[in-house]
């Protein structure tokens, strides 16, 4: 089953490779991994989307907690949560396609953030599924390039991940 694991870790050189090394050494999946400093610059927050049985996810969280630089680990799937991913997508948009493309972007609540003679670059956020659906809806023929961030997530309501 798919899980989103959020990790607070010391913002130090090499911390990322300890986490990614752990996943490869123990044969755990990484569907996506994002990381950036938090409002406290000494901490980074990492979001890993992984999949595995309950036992595997339990081991993943235990092994992550064991890493010396990891401060806190939470499996967002334990409680209601929100996940979002950002995609920048560059599509072909020549004269006759431009209106259609604009409409499609609006339907998905995308924003066109760059325009050239033959292209649009659209910014779109949502769940991974929504981004997939947008790609599907456009059709592969018009897509020139995509850049996706991978998911990041946060718990709903009062639950917070902080030290």
């Amino acid at each position: 089953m798919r899980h989103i694991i959020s990790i607070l870790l010391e913002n130090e050189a090499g911390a990322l490779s300890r986490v990614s090394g752990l996943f490869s050494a123990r044969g755990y999946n990484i569907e996506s991994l994002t990381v950036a400093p938090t409002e406290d610059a000494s901490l980074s927050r990492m979001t890993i989307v992984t999949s595995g049985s309950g036992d595997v996810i339990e081991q993943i969280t235990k092994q992550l907690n064991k890493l010396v630089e990891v401060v806190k680990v939470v499996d967002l799937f334990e409680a209601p949560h929100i996940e979002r991913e950002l995609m920048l997508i560059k599509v072909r948009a020549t004269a006759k396609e431009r209106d259609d493309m604009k409409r499609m972007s609006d339907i998905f609540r995308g924003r066109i953030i760059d325009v050239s003679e033959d292209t649009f670059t659209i910014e779109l956020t949502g769940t991974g599924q929504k981004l997939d659906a947008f790609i599907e809806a456009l059709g592969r023929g018009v897509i020139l390039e995509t850049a996706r961030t991978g998911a990041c997530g946060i718990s709903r309501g009062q639950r917070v991940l902080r030290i």
Partner: protein
Amino acid sequence: MELSGAEILIKCLQAEKVEYVFGYPGGSVLFIYDELFKQTKIKHVLVRHEQGATHAADGYSRSSRKIGVALVTSGPGVTNAVTGIATAYMDSIPMVIISGQVPTHAIGLDAFQECDAVGITRPCVKHNFLVKDVKDLALTMKKAFYLATTGRPGPVLVDIPKDVTTAKCKFEYPETITMRSYNPVVKGHPGQIKKAMQLLLEAKRPMVYAGGGVILSEAAAQLTKLVRMLGFPCTNTLMGLGGFPATDKHFVGMPGMHGTYEANMAMQNCDVLVAIGARFDDRVIGDPAHFGQVPRKIIHIDIDPSSISKRVKVDVPIVGHVPDVLDDLIKLIEASKQRPEPKALHAWWAQIELWKTKDCLRYDRKSKIIKPQFVLEKLYEITKGDAIVTSDVGQHQMWAAQFYKFDKPRRWINSGGLGTMGFGLPAAMGAQMANPGASVVCVTGEASFQMCIQELSTCKQYRLPIKVVNLNNRYMGMVRQWQQFFHGNRYSESYMDALPDFVKLAESYGHVGIRIDKPADVEPALKEAFKRTDELVFMDFITDQTENVYPMVGGGKGLTEMILAEDL
């Protein structure tokens, strides 16, 4: 006053009361060696290969409560040390490794003797550091010693670029340290301990299964008290030997791939199993699915949460420092009026006694060729069970574990997790350094011994009177055994040809060598060797080439699917 990084490093080691550093100099660590030269508190032991330095530091740690320290240079110094670091990591041995690194400005430019030490060692250390600024050095060293020795112990590597060893700053060694990201649990959860107590007191067929965690956490006294007060059978894993006295009537031998029949049967057929500082390793419980077929309640006490429910689901997990948890558990049992039902316990012991009649460790005592088991029995007799025994890896290791009865912790030093051939001799050096007056024996085989044979030279230089018991069967015995059992007797590359004359070899290093090829000569040779208290004696026992280690649970088999000597 400002000190150089090299001076600061030495001051840190002194502050940690380090007696010995096992190492090998090289370009990147020259300033550190210069500072070592200028002081007398820390003694440096010059090994002949960096693998020897890490194994020696490891043996030093295992045989004492002190921490082993190794010092190696950059590049090949580090890569040579990796085997020893991984060995310590697999067995959770506290150790600090200091490695030299090329100057900070040269890092990443493929400089001479550069390697990514932190990257290469990352998967086989508890933690590691690259010190880029001399101002961080003292704090980093403090962290390294703290991390290595607390929680589940392990090796910690500190990589120090050459320019950091010359850069200067004020030295201040922190007294204490706290790290927000590292807080090992010490006290066990009282509710869980209570649950464990209830299970233990209601058990009809209880079994205590104790591992290396008991040795590492100094919990032998608590374990012994618990087992004796409850009257339960107890088994010690390969890493746990000595955690409970092997000569005690409650001891049923080692479990696992080469465990005793009675220990394995009891592990499988008990109704309550309490695992203490053990990790349900594949060599201990065999196939986890087979192990899980039998309904039993499992209590697991361990400092490392990730060891719990990793291979086997447990019913009562207790995370904590083993001696503290056992103290709490013993107190609860003492306060409780309930005791295990004597009738049930009596019946269980009767069953175990029946299993014991299999006499699973028997061998041909009338053999005209030396049987390796016989050598170990004699070794046990002559040393009165009180030697520190290190071993290499293979058949001799298993026979030593089966036939030498360890009554005390830290007397049995072997590479259980990684299974590193070449470990025995350098580990014995470390053990002898940590225990100057003790009898230190290295039980080895002609194949393993040759993997770190160069350390005979170190033994001479530091006058280490180690006794080497070489069980020479001209085969990689354990490989040959597997090939006999599982590969149709095709002994692919497992023979040992072109062996040196070990007697002459020992003599050429300035040691004493004895060759023994008759059973009648075994005892006299051992006696002669132990009389020579100030010399290394290499005993080359020419043993039966066809002898196998029994019982044996084949790889991936169930724990009770044992091959016994009588089956073949």
